[in-house]
């Protein structure tokens, strides 16, 4: 079996269509200012006219993330020789990743059932493969910071937000599922935090590289300010759960700062694209 399987070779049937980040980044269309507020979309609450569909889209994205998290954790068990060298993974780390595979497989099954509950077909929306791509880093510690700490950390924020949506809407199934998956995600993030400290205990340079990779992933996937600490942020940064997952206060502050930066850059980028499109098409706004 191949080591370091490229993203293009992930097994998918004809229901799934992938959209690269680049395709989205060059999209010149814009969201009007009055609907932009904290980012590309306002917070999902039951009184928002499109809330049920927005929740379906988000949960389908979570399903794709669970699938790739399963694939990523499985690859980490296989891609590295067992050992304590820089290109190796200790047996106990692989054991943690195997446990994570078990959790992610369960999350996939929960997500499929949730899709049926919410009226979503598997593959109804495009697949973004960023989670698996972060799981392809040749250094296992960077995989753990990119996937377990950054992206599974994002999953904590999303699950917590969706659990709040479910409570407000009175959806007992969604609330229950989110609560259980949230508990697992906290464990996954904690694994990332623990292994980062353990494997880089005597290697500050490697720790720095790993944290820098996490910052890049965190900023990239603050999704243009989609996640933040403002009341109307679509995804709220879940401080308490992040503390439980081994994040220090200053690390959580940093993620909040990165989200604000990402939001500002997103708005500037979109404004520039819109200006460019106006110049090309001769329209005025």
């Amino acid at each position, binding site marked *: 079996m191949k080591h370091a399987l490229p993203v293009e070779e992930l097994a998918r049937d004809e229901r799934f269509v992938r*959209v690269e980040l680049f395709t989205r980044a060059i999209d010149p*269309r814009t969201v009007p200012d009055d609907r932009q507020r904290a980012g590309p979309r306002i917070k999902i609450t039951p009184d928002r006219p499109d809330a*049920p569909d927005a929740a379906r889209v988000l949960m389908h994205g979570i399903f794709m993330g669970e699938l790739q998290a399963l694939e990523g954790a499985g690859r980490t068990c296989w891609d590295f020789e067992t050992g304590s060298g820089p290109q190796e993974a200790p047996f106990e780390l692989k054991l943690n990743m195997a446990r994570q595979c078990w959790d992610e497989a369960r999350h996939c099954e929960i997500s499929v059932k949730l899709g049926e509950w919410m009226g979503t077909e598997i593959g*109804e929306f495009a697949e973004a493969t960023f989670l698996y791509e972060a799981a392809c880093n040749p250094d296992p510690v960077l995989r753990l910071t990119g996937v377990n700490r950054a992206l599974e950390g994002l999953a904590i924020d999303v699950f917590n937000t969706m659990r709040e949506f479910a409570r407000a809407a*009175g959806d007992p199934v969604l609330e229950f599922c989110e609560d259980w998956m949230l508990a697992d995600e906290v464990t996954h993030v904690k694994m990332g935090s623990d292994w980062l400290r353990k494997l880089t205990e005597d290697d500050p340079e490697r720790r720095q590289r790993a944290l820098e990779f996490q910052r890049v992933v965190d900023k990239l996937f603050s999704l243009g300010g989609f996640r933040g600490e403002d009341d109307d942020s679509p995804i709220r940064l879940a401080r308490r759960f992040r503390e439980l997952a081994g994040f220090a206060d200053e690390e959580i502050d940093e993620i909040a700062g990165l989200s604000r930066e990402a939001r500002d850059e997103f708005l500037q980028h979109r404004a520039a694209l819109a200006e460019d499109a106006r110049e090309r098409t001769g329209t005025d706004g």
Partner: protein
Amino acid sequence: MPVRVTPETFSMVNYDSAVIAATVEKLIADVGLPTDTPVSLEVDERVPLGKAEIRSVDPIELFVEGGAIEDAKRPREFSSEAALDVVGRLLMEVRDRLDPAFGAPPLDEEITVPVRTAWEIYAVGRLSRRGHRGQRQRRLYAFRTRHGFTDVADAAFESLWSGDGLCFADVVRISESTRQMLR
């Protein structure tokens, strides 16, 4: 041609106004409006969101943001399925509004989100019986989100989904009586 789509040429998305017009023409017949009914549809291609609304009933003027008729898997590509869903629902609402027996409020009168959702269920239910995609479970989820996750709400949904000959007052009564159970 009774259907007019603006703009005629799209530059930000890969949409074809003739294809969109043909989709709308098919829908005019499917919802039961006279086939020569003039309809104009404005598409704001600059916005990737999904807003869709009736701007005027006489003459019929509809508006959608580009995202409302976009392929959910392929950014900036047109989806005839999405267009049939969204414009079909709008035209069914137009049909209701043109029917004095239905008793719809004036177009500029605000309708609450739960009542709006109930009306949409009634519209899409009728469309699904005419051979269009209904996505029943998706609609049921939207209804439950506004009316509660209860057997009472599910029964109310069923009366809208399979209903025929309802008037606006019926839709409001079904929605409000179901929501009263939540209090």
